[in-house]
C-alpha cells in the first residue's frame, strides 16, 4: 500500500479557507470582460482534454468556461507529487494531454525527452500577455516545451501566538527549532538542503562537497527537534498546534494565516531561498495536443488568469497590468502572493544538476534515517 507522500509536494493553498477572496472573485468576474474575446480565440474544437494535475489547482469555474468556449470536455486526473508523475511518465504511461510539474521536474523531463515541443502558433495569448521574464526561464530557456503556470516562494511560517520571537532569517528559524522542538519540515530534499545552504551563505543550489557537509552537520543537529516531515500535513499540524513553525510554501503560509485568523505569519527568509515555477507541459504520448494548446492559450487570457490566481493564490505569469480589474486584482498588493522585486532578487530557482542531486539525496537519506 504505498506511497505517499514521501515526496515533494508543491504548495497549494487551500483556497476554501481564504474567505474574503471569493467575494472579490465574484465581483471581479463581472468586471473583467477584457479577455473574453481572447478566450474565444481557441474556437470550436470539441474532443476531450485529459488534464493530469495537482488536486484543486484549477478554479472549477475555469473548466466550465473552457468547455463553453471551446467545446472541449475536460477529464481530470490527479497526482500528489512531481515524482509520482515522473515515475508514471518514465514507466511509459500515455494518454495524458497536459501536466503541471514544477520547474526542476520539467527540466528533468526535458532532458529525458519525455515532453513534446509546443506549437507557439497556437498560443497567441501567451505571446501577447505573458510577462517577458516568464518566457525565458532557466528551466527551459527557449520555451520549447513549457509555459509557466504560476510561481511562488519557499520560506517558513510560524504561529505568532506560540512563538514570542519574530524570526526573519533561516538562522533564527534554526535557533528557534532548537529552542522549542516544535518544527515541521517539508519532505523534500531540494527545499530543506537548499534553504539551510542559503542560511550558511551558500547558493541554494550548491553542489560543493564541503558546503554540503556543513549543511549536513546542521541538519543532523536539527533532527531531534523536528516534529514531522511532511509536505501536505505540515500546515494542518501547525494549525492544530502540534508544530509551531514550519518550512514551507507561500500559499500554505497564506492559507494558514487565514485559518488561524492572523495568528500565523509567512516569511521569506532574509538570507534568501527558493522561488519555484510550475509549468504547463505536454508529455510524450498525449492523445490530444490541440486541446492542450487550447487550454494553455485559454488560461492566458487576463480574465481567466485572474480567476486562476484568485483561486490558487499563486503568482500569475501574466503582465501585472493585465490583471488589474480581474478577479485577482485585490491580490496584486499582497506581498505573500506577489513578493516585492527586491525580495524576489534574493531567491533562486532549483537548478541542481543530476550529480548534485545524488549528493543531496544521500544527505537527505541520512537525515531522515538518523
Amino acid at each position, binding site marked *: 500500500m504505498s506511497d505517499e507522500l514521501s515526496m515533494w509536494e508543491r504548495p497549494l493553498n487551500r483556497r476554501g479557507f481564504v474567505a474574503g477572496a471569493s467575494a472579490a472573485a465574484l465581483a471581479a468576474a463581472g468586471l473583467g470582460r477584457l479577455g473574453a474575446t481572447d478566450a474565444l480565440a481557441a474556437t470550436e474544437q470539441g474532443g476531450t482534454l485529459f488534464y493530469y494535475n495537482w488536486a484543486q489547482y484549477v478554479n472549477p469555474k475555469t473548466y466550465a468556461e473552457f468547455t463553453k468556449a471551446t467545446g472541449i470536455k475536460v477529464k481530470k486526473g490527479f497526482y500528489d507529487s512531481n515524482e509520482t508523475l515522473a515515475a508514471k511518465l518514465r514507466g511509459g504511461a500515455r494518454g495524458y494531454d497536459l501536466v503541471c510539474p514544477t520547474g526542476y521536474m520539467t527540466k528533468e523531463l526535458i532532458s*529525458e525527452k519525455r515532453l513534446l515541443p509546443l506549437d507557439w502558433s497556437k498560443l497567441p495569448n501567451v505571446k501577447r500577455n505573458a510577462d517577458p521574464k516568464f518566457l525565458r526561464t532557466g528551466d527551459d530557456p527557449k520555451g520549447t516545451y513549457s509555459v509557466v503556470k504560476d510561481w511562488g516562494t519557499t520560506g517558513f511560517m510560524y504561529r505568532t501566538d506560540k512563538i514570542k520571537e519574530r524570526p526573519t532569517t533561516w538562522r533564527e528559524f534554526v535557533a528557534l527549532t532548537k529552542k522549542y522542538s516544535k518544527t515541521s519540515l517539508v519532505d523534500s530534499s531540494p527545499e530543506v538542503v537548499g534553504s539551510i545552504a542559503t542560511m550558511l551563505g551558500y547558493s541554494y543550489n550548491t553542489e560543493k562537497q564541503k558546503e554540503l557537509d556543513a549543511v549536513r552537520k546542521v541538519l543532523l543537529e536539527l533532527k531531534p527537534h523536528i516534529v514531522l516531515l*511532511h509536505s501536505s500535513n505540515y500546515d494542518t499540524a501547525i494549525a492544530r498546534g502540534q508544530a509551531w513553525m514550519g518550512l514551507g510554501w507561500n500559499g500554505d503560509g497564506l492559507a494558514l494565516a487565514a485559518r488561524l485568523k492572523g495568528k500565523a505569519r509567512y516569511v521569506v527568509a532574509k538570507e534568501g531561498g527558493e522561488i519555484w515555477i510550475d509549468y504547463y507541459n505536454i508529455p510524450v504520448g498525449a492523445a490530444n495536443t490541440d486541446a492542450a494548446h487550447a487550454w494553455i492559450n485559454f488560461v492566458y487570457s487576463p480574465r481567466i488568469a485572474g480567476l486562476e490566481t484568485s483561486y490558487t493564490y499563486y503568482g500569475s505569469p501574466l503582465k501585472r497590468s493585465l490583471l488589474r480589474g480581474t478577479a485577482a486584482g485585490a491580490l496584486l498588493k499582497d506581498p505573500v502572493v506577489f513578493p516585492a522585486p527586491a525580495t524576489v532578487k534574493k531567491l533562486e530557482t532549483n537548478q541542481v544538476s543530476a550529480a548534485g542531486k545524488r549528493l543531496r539525496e544521500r544527505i537527505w*537519506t541520512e537525515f531522515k534515517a538518523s
Partner: protein
Amino acid sequence: MAPPEDGPKEHRRGLTRAGAGGPRYPAWLVLPAVSWYVLFFLVPLGFIVATSFGTVVGFSDIAYTWSLDNYRYLWDDVVGELHIYRDIFLATFKLSIVGTLSTLAIGFPLAYYIARYAKHKTLLLLLVIVPFWTSFLIRAYAWLIVLDPEFPLFRALGMSELVERQGILFSEKAIFIGVTYNYLPLMVLPLYAALERMDWSLVEAAQDLGDSPLRAFRRVTLPLALPGILAGSLLVFIPLTGEYIIPVILGGNKTFYAGSLIAQQFLESGDWPLGSAIAMVVIGALTIALLIYARALGKQEQYG
C-alpha cells in the same frame, strides 16, 4: 510460535495417511495461477532484476551497464554515519515483529470468540473487515485526529495534558498503533478460517478428562489453530517489511524502514537502479527465509 511436538492423534493420522502416494488433486491445477505469476509477475520482475545492474544517467535515465555498483553500495552498508542493515533493516524487523505479535495478541481471542461462541459468525467476521472498505488514507488521517491531545474527547475528559505528555502522535507508538489497527483483519481472517473447523467437543472432552483449560488449549486448540496462526503471521509480517506509509503519516516520517528506503529511490531520488538492487536483496532474503520456514513446518506438519 514454535510448532507443537505432538499434535492430537486424529489430526496426525489424517495427515500421515495423506502421504505422497495416495490419490490427490491433479497437479495441473496449479497451472492457471503459475502462468499468471510467470506472465504478470516474473516477467515484469525481470525488468527490476535488469535495472538493479544498471546505472543512472543524467537525472533518472537508466543505462543497462551490468555493473555491480548498486549491490556494492549496499554491501558497503554505510551512508555517512548510517548503517543500512543495522539501522534501517533492524528497525524494519522490529516493526514487523511488533505488528505481528500485537495483531496476534488482539486478534486471536476475537477469532476464537467468533469461531467458538458467536451466534452470527459470518456477520461478526464481516464486521471486522467493513472498516477497511473506507480507504486507507481516511483511516490513517482519522488516527491523526484521534491521537491528537486536542481531540475533543480528551479535552472533555480533561485528559489532554496526559495525552500530550505521552507524546503518542508522530512517535513510534503511533506507528505501532496504526500498524496494529490496519493489519488486524489480516490476522483475524485466517485465524477464523482455521478455528472455525475446530471440533469443540474435543476441547470439552480434554477438559472432562482432567485437563486444565490452559492445558486443553495448548494440547487441542493450539495445534489445530497453528496453520491459521502461521498464515495470519505471514500475511501480517510480510507486507509489514515493505510498509512505509503509516510511519510517514502517523510517525511524522522520522523513522526510516526498508520500505521507505526503496520507495525513496523510486519516488524521490529517481534512482531506480539502486531501488531495484535494494528490492532484490529484500525479496531474495525474505523468499529464502520463507522457504526455510515453510520447509521446517512442512517436516513438522507433514505438509507434503
